[in-house]
Structures are given as C-alpha cells and as structure tokens.
C-alpha cells in the first residue's frame, strides 16, 4: 500500500475536508500516527476509513458528532482496535515484534561475546552467552519510547503541531541515548545475564520460527490485499448515469453511491 501520508491521493482528498471535519481529521491522523502500536497497515486502513466517512458525511451536511460521538479520541481508539482485530495484527504484530527483538538482542550478545569483549570466547570452551547491561538498556529505551509516544499522543491530542514536533524530538533523543548506551566501555547498568548456550540456541530457533510464521502471515495478507487492489484498478467497469441525480458511477453498484437511488431490474443501463 505504501506510506499513505506521502501519497498524492491522500493530499488531494484531504483538501476536500472543511470546517469541523478538517480539524477533526487532522487531530485524528496525528493521534493515530503518534499512538499507533499495531503497525502501518492498521494505521493506513484506519485513516482511509475515517477519511471516507468524513467526506461522505460532510457532503451530506451531517454534523460531526453523529459520526464520531462525543469524544474524538475514544472514536480513534475504537477504530484502531477494531482495525487491528480485523487484520489480526494485535497478535501477529507482537508475534513478529518480540521474537525479532530477541533475535536482535542475541546477535548483539554474540558479537559482544566473540568480538567486542576483552576476554574473547571460543565455541569450544563456551558455556554461557552473556547479555550485558548496555544491550538491555538499549532495548529498554526503545520500549520506553513507545510508551512515551502513546502518552504524548494522549496529552497533546488537541495540539496537533506540538504533537508532531514533540514526537520527532523524542524520537531523535531516544535514538541518541540508545546509541550512547550501546557504546563499548560505558556500562551504564552493571548487570549481566548469563544464558546457557543450549537454552540460547533453543530460544533463537523458537524466535526464528515465530518470526517466520508472522512474516508469512503478513505477506499472505499483503498479497491478498494487492490482488484485490489490482483487480479493482485493471477492471474497466462500465459506467451508468443515475436517473435521479444524473451522476456517473460504476454500473455494478446496487444503489447510486451519491443519492442512494436503488436500481430495479427494469431500469436499463
């Protein structure tokens, strides 16, 4: 699907929103982008749904509260949660994230043990893989970043520009601190976890399998989505003119998408 925010279609369509709908969409997009923990597919799908609903309701002159209810943030939370359930991304996302994070930790631990440590180990005599405090701190900071991201999205919900600026600043700060934490020689947390080699290997195998399953599931969904999307683009669907509002639309609609005139079998194309 691509990064939706950069698409021309998004920018063009967004210009159509006016008044309270434009303000609400801007807040919703910033909030969903800042607080989304379910992955980009979920975010883009959510925004498409919201944008379509807002545009349709705006064209009909419906007040915003009829679509979102009294609380915009709660509306966004419900949409994101529902979308993550639709894509099963809640589980798949964490099935993907946790093993991948563990694999990154194990790669860093192996590099530390065999290359960067002052006492370089060899496989012949190795009994434990050591995960030192710097690696734990690095991933702790990344995790903290996600928590802070969510809190910021909630705190600055009504201040879109500030939210965007603060999100970027926090991201830059997090990356800077995490990089410093990894630097050899600066053991900020004097903790070392020793994992027996056999357990280390088993955990790695399980993580690779879990990551592989989630990547397979993820790619299967993307292939299905791309096929559906492509079929829609390639189809040269015949058009028809609504006899009531005189607007042109695809002929396979059971009702006019503009004025909802329901077609009967007797009405010609």
């Amino acid at each position, binding site marked *: 699907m691509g990064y939706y925010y950069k698409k021309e*279609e*998004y920018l*063009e*369509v967004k210009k*159509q929103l006016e008044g309270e709908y434009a303000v609400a969409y801007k807040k919703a997009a910033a909030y969903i982008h800042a607080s989304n923990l379910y992955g980009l597919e979920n975010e883009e799908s959510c925004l*498409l*749904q919201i*944008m*379509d*609903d807002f*545009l*349709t*309701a705006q*064209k009909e002159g419906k007040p915003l509260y*009829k*679509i*979102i*209810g009294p609380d915009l943030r*709660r*509306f966004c939370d*419900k*949409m994101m*949660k*529902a*979308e993550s*359930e*639709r894509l099963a991304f809640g589980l798949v996302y964490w099935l993907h994230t946790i093993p991948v994070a563990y694999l990154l930790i194990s790669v860093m631990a192996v590099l530390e043990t065999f290359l960067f440590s002052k006492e370089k180990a060899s496989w012949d005599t190795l009994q434990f893989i050591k995960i030192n405090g710097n690696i734990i701190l690095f991933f702790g900071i990344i995790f903290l970043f996600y928590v802070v991201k969510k809190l910021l999205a909630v705190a600055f919900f009504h201040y879109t520009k500030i939210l965007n600026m603060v999100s970027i600043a926090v991201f830059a700060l997090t990356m800077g601190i995490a990089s410093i934490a990894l630097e050899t020689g600066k053991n900020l947390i004097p903790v070392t976890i020793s994992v027996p080699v056999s357990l280390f290997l088993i955990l790695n195998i399980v993580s690779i399998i879990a990551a592989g399953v989630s990547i397979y599931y993820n790619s299967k969904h993307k292939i299905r*989505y791309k096929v*559906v*999307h492509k079929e*829609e683009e390639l189809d040269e669907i015949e058009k028809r003119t609504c006899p009531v509002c005189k*607007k042109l*639309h*695809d002929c396979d609609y*059971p*009702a006019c*998408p*503009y004025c*909802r005139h329901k077609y009967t079998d007797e009405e010609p194309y």
Partner: protein
Amino acid sequence: MQYTVAGAEPTVQKYQNKDLIVTKGVTMEDSQLLKGILEGCVLAIIAKGETYGYDILSVLERHGFKELQEGTLYPVLVRLEKKKDIQCRIGSSPYGPKRKYYSITPGGEEHLKQFLTSYENLIDITNSILYPAN
C-alpha cells in the same frame, strides 16, 4: 426504562402499576439490549445487497438507531468479517479514498436465518412475560 416500538407515537403504558414510557428510537442506556441485536440488524442490511459502513449507519439511523456512531458499528463489522459472515472488498469511492464494501457470505445467510428464528422466539417469550394475557 425506554425501548423501541418502531413507528409508534410516544405513549404511556402500565406495567406492574408503574408507568412505562414507550418512545420511538433506541437510547444508549439500553446498550446491553443493543449489543445482542445489532449484529443481526447489520447482517440483515448487508444481506439486501453490497454496501459500505456509512450507508449501513444511515440505514440504522433511519430506522431509529439515532445515537449509533461509526465507532460502535465498525467493531461489529469486524466481528462479522472475522466470523466469515460477511466479506470485504476494497473498491473506489466517489470522493477519492478507497472504500470497504461488505457483502454477505453463504455462512452469513445461514446465521441470519438462525438469528431471525431466535429473535422471533425471544420476542414471543418476552411479550408473554411482559404482557401476560389476562
């Protein structure tokens, strides 16, 4: 307590010597009642022909679900899709962004029939309790 009698003007009826106000439309105080029937109602709307979320919301509103929002409807659509009662395709929208269109599956039609049977039975049983024939 308020509940729906479709098409009726607001009236007052007696139940156990208390005034029972019967008005048109369902209020959100009856959320438990709503949860039980909303899936069936949405399925019935989709069974009439392929449609999309906003249109479903409009139909529900026309029939009396005045306080229903997209945030309540969308999880219902997701549940139905996960149960494979409905299927979704991404199509074009007249306003620009892609739109999700929903249609009923054969499994969904079966479930709708079951829902209608259960609903009719429940109405009969409830009415016989609330309005016993004297």
